[in-house]
């Protein structure tokens, strides 16, 4: 007996519906324009030495010591990224102490930036603001939310080379049920830092990235 064409095809593909649906759902769940917003304001220095210093972040959120948390994670990722020569946090803090700058509350002014950059012998400085950092209670667990703004400054002139804004929250990484959720601020900071560095790599810092 000849099986009707529609029946034959539906029999053939029925077992595949569920796996395809699951795969499609997981792919779509990871999609959706969450890349950092990078605004380039000036060209990078012609001869990039990859010597960079990250200045203490200013914490605009209520997350206690959130500036230090994101700073340590970001600098860890920056060191891992490739060929950057990152100034020691201790040297940066020494300069802040001598210039009477309270890290975590204020950024240095133009003259102080020049002093710090000259002292650390770096070409580029990174300043950052923690705009939002909060862990939201959700269904018995904590869902972190983080938004940061970073500025890249040319050391000897103090002019802004670029600004980067990025915002992420743990729920964005949910794939199916609870899988993929990011439940800790440290992990979320790690992701945000990695994504920012990936976007910088595309903006002309390529030679400082690599193995």
């Amino acid at each position: 007996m000849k099986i009707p064409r529609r029946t034959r095809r539906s029999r053939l593909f029925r077992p595949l519906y569920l796996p395809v649906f699951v795969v499609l759902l997981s792919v779509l769940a990871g999609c959706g324009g969450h890349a950092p917003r990078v605004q380039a304001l000036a060209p990078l220095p012609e001869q990039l030495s990859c010597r960079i210093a990250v200045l203490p972040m200013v914490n605009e959120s209520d997350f206690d010591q959130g500036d230090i948390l994101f700073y340590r994670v970001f600098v860890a990722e920056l060191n891992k990224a490739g060929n950057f020569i990152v100034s020691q946090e201790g040297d940066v803090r020494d300069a802040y102490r001598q210039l009477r700058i309270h890290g975590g509350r204020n950024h240095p002014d133009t003259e102080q930036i020049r002093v710090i950059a000259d002292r650390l012998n770096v070409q580029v400085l990174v300043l950052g603001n923690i705009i939002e950092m909060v862990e939201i209670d959700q269904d018995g667990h904590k869902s972190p939310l983080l938004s940061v703004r970073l500025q890249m400054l040319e050391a000897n002139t103090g002019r802004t080379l670029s600004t980067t804004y990025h915002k992420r929250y743990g729920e964005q990484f949910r794939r199916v049920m609870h899988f993929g959720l990011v439940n800790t601020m440290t992990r979320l900071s790690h992701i945000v830092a990695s994504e920012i560095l990936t976007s910088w790599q595309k903006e002309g810092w390529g030679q400082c990235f690599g193995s």
Partner: protein
Amino acid sequence: MPARFFPFIVLWAVLFYGSAAQAAYRIAVIPVEDLSGSRNSVNLELSHRLEQELSTRDLQVISSEEVISFMARKRIRWLGYLDTDHIIQAKDELGVDLLLFGTICQRREKISPAFGLSLYLVRTSDAKTIWTASGGLSLADVQHLLGLFEPTSLDDLWPELTRQVMSDWPADLAAVMGQALLFDLAGGEQPSVLSVDDIVLEPRYVRPGEQVRCSVRLSLSAKHEEAPQIFIKVGSRVHLAQESTDGMYYEASWTGSEVDRGIYREVGDAPLNLAMQDLDVRFFEGIWSGSERDDRYPVSLILNWPNGEQQSAFLGYYTVDSHPPQVELDLKGRVLQGEISFRDKLFVIPSILNREPFSQWQIRIENDNGTLISTQRGEGGLPPVFVWKGQQANGFPVEEGKYRIVLNVWDRAGNEAEAAKTVSFRPNPPDLVFDAELLDQDVRVRINKKGDIPLAYWHLEVWSNDGYLLKKIEGDELPVQMDIPLASRTVESNKIEGKIVLQDILGNQTRMEFGDLLLLAMQHKDSDEAETSEAAEEKDDSDSFAWLSEF
């Protein structure tokens, strides 16, 4: 020995010497900073766990007591980081090749317990960070099939987190340690970061001819014969820094700006031409102009090492300012005879013509004799307005008269500016002259005032005793005279009440109420008659006096 054992011997030798080579690296774990506690709080328990973890990786871990003793000797009161100088000192004094810095980014025990960790591995020979890792883990992240062997507390999470974070620990640490150094101390190179402990550059704003002093405390571990020459470069001039009497600082001082800008400063046998190595075009212009000018001068530190290496660090700017600020006073009040006058409140508004920050200001009030009545001082910016209520410093009111308001301001270099204005304090109400005269059917009223302050208005109301309004009149000019008719009602009630109000243009007001105008008028008539008889008596007396004198 049978040949079949030979491969095993070779394998054993490779493993033994390989691990021995690995174990040649000494590492110190700086006490872990715990961000879940208060600022700069330490977590020694997790520091010990990290030490145990590292010792399983064939590293020689020095004891935490040695590390804490080192930190105490060097007065290191912070956790999570060290500067280049202290890292190099750790290499020399602790004999370590590596330092591990750890930060507990998160440690939450209630509502979804979670841990966050960040690690930095630093090579002490050149203070370079050679490995980093960070990670976070919560109980919700670790879920096993059927819930078997899942962690239930933070203690259970720690091994899993450590395993994740250290999963990319350098497999070949020797290769990483052998990478090119940032600077070769053993070869005589200096760190790229100048170790400056403290800088004092003051004052930052000076007038021409004033001294500027710069003191720098360096962290130099070089021996005396290897010590560098230290210079302070100011604009285009170079000053040799001298060691302070307590031996802790290197100091130099100079005049804010000088007419003579020398190129060279001879030091020892050879002329010092450090300044000529600067390719700043402005520097060359500055050499030859020789003119004193207000400007912003950069100050840099230069170290000349015996091996010819030179290090420099920018310290900051100072500014020479010879121009005093420009300030004016604006007084809000009525102008009387060309002078600002007021009766109870005077608003003094300072106006800054060339905006610049002030270091301090002073406003004082003096009377005509120059005696100080009141003064007020402050630092920083001027208030937008001052209010004087005609009082002395003790709160008592001052007398009517002229006063001088003087404002002095000083900019950051100490240049002083003064603005002054005279003001007239007129708190007294107008002096009313009121007169009433009884006529046949009317009462004639005359109103006048004494004093030179123009009148804003006067107002007269006259009422009969039973509430009948006889007259209501006002004006702004004096003297004035008017007749108030004695109506039949008045005659019946036999009483006229009223009030008169005078107000000058400053707001001073005189108010007089009278209960019986007729009585006032009759008193005036009686006093006129008495004056007449007194005048007549005086005339008689004078005649008799004349008679007496003749007699």
